[in-house]
């Protein structure tokens, strides 16, 4: 490293990788259901897609986590998004393709993707 600027750039890049270790309650939490049902329905590629997308966009305020069975197995893969101070949004029948839109609309711009939510699916 030849300068402080280089050091700072490296720090910012590395910080993104470490986000997973923050128990920061101010973070947006993306929770993927990874029980047997979820995995069988294809939750793993969804989880991977979220991790990759969040990392690509260097979103330091987002934690991607997994959880067990949420209890709505017919809708798996299920993904819950908790934005601090807002209602939980539950996306259902997620696929890896849908992830980019959720990340850009919801996580970045704060607009939940209505068409993927449990509300619209149930209709």
């Amino acid at each position, binding site marked *: 490293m*030849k300068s402080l600027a280089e050091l700072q750039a490296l720090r910012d890049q590395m910080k993104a990788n470490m986000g997973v270790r923050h128990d920061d309650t101010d973070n947006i939490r993306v929770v993927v259901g990874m029980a047997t049902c979820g995995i069988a329905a294809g939750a793993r590629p969804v989880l991977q897609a979220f*991790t990759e997308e969040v990392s690509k966009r260097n979103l330091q305020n987002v934690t991607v986590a997994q959880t067990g069975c949420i209890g709505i197995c017919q809708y798996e893969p299920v993904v819950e998004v908790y934005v601090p101070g807002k209602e939980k949004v539950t996306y259902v029948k997620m696929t890896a393709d849908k992830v980019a839109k959720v990340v850009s609309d919801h996580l970045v711009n704060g607009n939940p993707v209505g068409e993927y939510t449990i509300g619209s699916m149930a209709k």
Partner: protein
Amino acid sequence: MYRSHVLVCGGTGCTSSGSAHIVEALETEIKKAGLENEVKVIKTGCFGLCALGPIMIIYPEGAFYSRVTPEDIPEVVAEHLVKGRIVTRLLYDETVHKDEILSLGETQFYKKQHRVALKNCGVIDPENINEYIAYDGYQALGKVLTEMTPADVIQLVKDSGLRGRGGAGFPTGLKWSFAAASENDQKYVCCNADEGDPGAFMDRSVLEGDPHVVIEAMAIAGYAIGANQGYIYVRAEYPIAVKRLQIAIGQAREAGLLGENILGTGFNFNLDLRLGAGAFVCGEETALMTSIEGHRGEPRPRPPFPAVKGLFGKPSVLNNVETYANIPQIILKGADWFRSMGTEKSPGTKVFALGGKIHNTGLVEVPMGTTLREIIEEIGGGIPNGKKFKAAQTGGPSGGCIPASHMDIKIDYDNLLEIGSMMGSGGMIVMDEDTCMVDIAKFFLEFTVDESCGKCVPCRIGTKRLYEILDRITKGKGEMEDIQRLKDLSKFIKENSLCGLGQTAPNPVLSTLHFFEDEYIAHIKDKTCPAGVCKDLLHYSIIAEKCKGCTLCARACPAGAISGELKNPHKIDPHKCVKCGACMEKCRFGAIVKK
């Protein structure tokens, strides 16, 4: 990008309880499950809760698993990592609260702690400089080199009120200013990583868990005083610390954070390790420097002080590991932030190695001014087996005992000194009612006698004679004049010894004499050990009414000291009895007593 990080403690405590096997098992199982691109396994430094090792945390959930065995790993991987279901049975029980899982920070052990020096321990991979950088590593060095003059740095450290964490509590900024004021074309920065107090291991934990913080702080010190070379004097008995330091120095060099023209600022700083052979006296600054120079590790008279004539006769600064671990944060967060913790004369936090008769043994970092009661009863979880707290020993062989009557003492440098103990490097040994204070004094004296370098008369001969008097007393051969003799000799050794080792060696004797003189008198006059520890003063006997004559005791006795007919009360021959207590353990009727 990994979605999950598994942090396994790779500190010395957990390594010895088998954490390396945990890492192997994890890697195998994760591979089997095809998760190697999703889950990252990191070996960290010490978490502090060594009694529960091996320890492992899985993020992002922050699940804190304790006493993990390799056999547990397949389950952890299949359940937690694959399915996201936390394996509750392995959780540290303190984190399970009414079916809710608490984060580690909410447990009794961690709640009152405030981690500054240990900030990164158990959080980052100590063998990866990038993780240190991710947590603002080397930013302080960058700031110092680009925005501050050496005088600014020294003023900031002075303003923070940081005092040396190695024992005496000398103001760090003042120390640096002395070395900065000494004019010389060559100066040195040294780090005392020769932690030698029995029971203290916070420096080792920092080195194992966060080696870069020491490197960064030393470079900052080098800039402040005008030194371009540093030495870390680390004991060879700390192989993990040595290895991680070597890796860290190599990485820092490669990253251009050590060496020539650091961060393009024209500042040069190099760092080398020197391994100590484990002599306690080499923690004394002049002895440490003498040892680095390649001589027998012995102290030198001061003045000249190291700031004027230190390592290789050049102006030098020496701080210990924990002191350095505070520096980068002081630079980044400011003096006021640091002063917001602790007491006025002792700002900041202090790490204690909690040990002895206490539930949670391990490393705790608390703000200065925390009371002894909070540390022992809340963080430490109190005394096991319903026993009563008798005293806490701080400062290792240089310190003294704090009795129950002083449990509400706010712990800082000055308060400890006032009651005849000292901070030392932060060992804290808790003693319950079964501890004999004369025996404790003897224990510490034995250590000092062993570790005395032998250079000066008071320490070489005086401590030996002090030990012999204590030994006599614990064997029931003391006389009342011995108490005065102990006091006279202690005073002489304190005032006449060459270095801190000797000057503080009598403290355990003086402080136990001060608070527990009655125990000494009981040993001397009544020939009894009230705590029932001193073997020569113990007598085992059989209460005839309770003895059923089962012969178990007689068969257990290794000395053939017990005789008696079957189904008739037995007897112990006191001349043959070796006071091992085996009979008492075997007796099912409580018929054997020791007095």
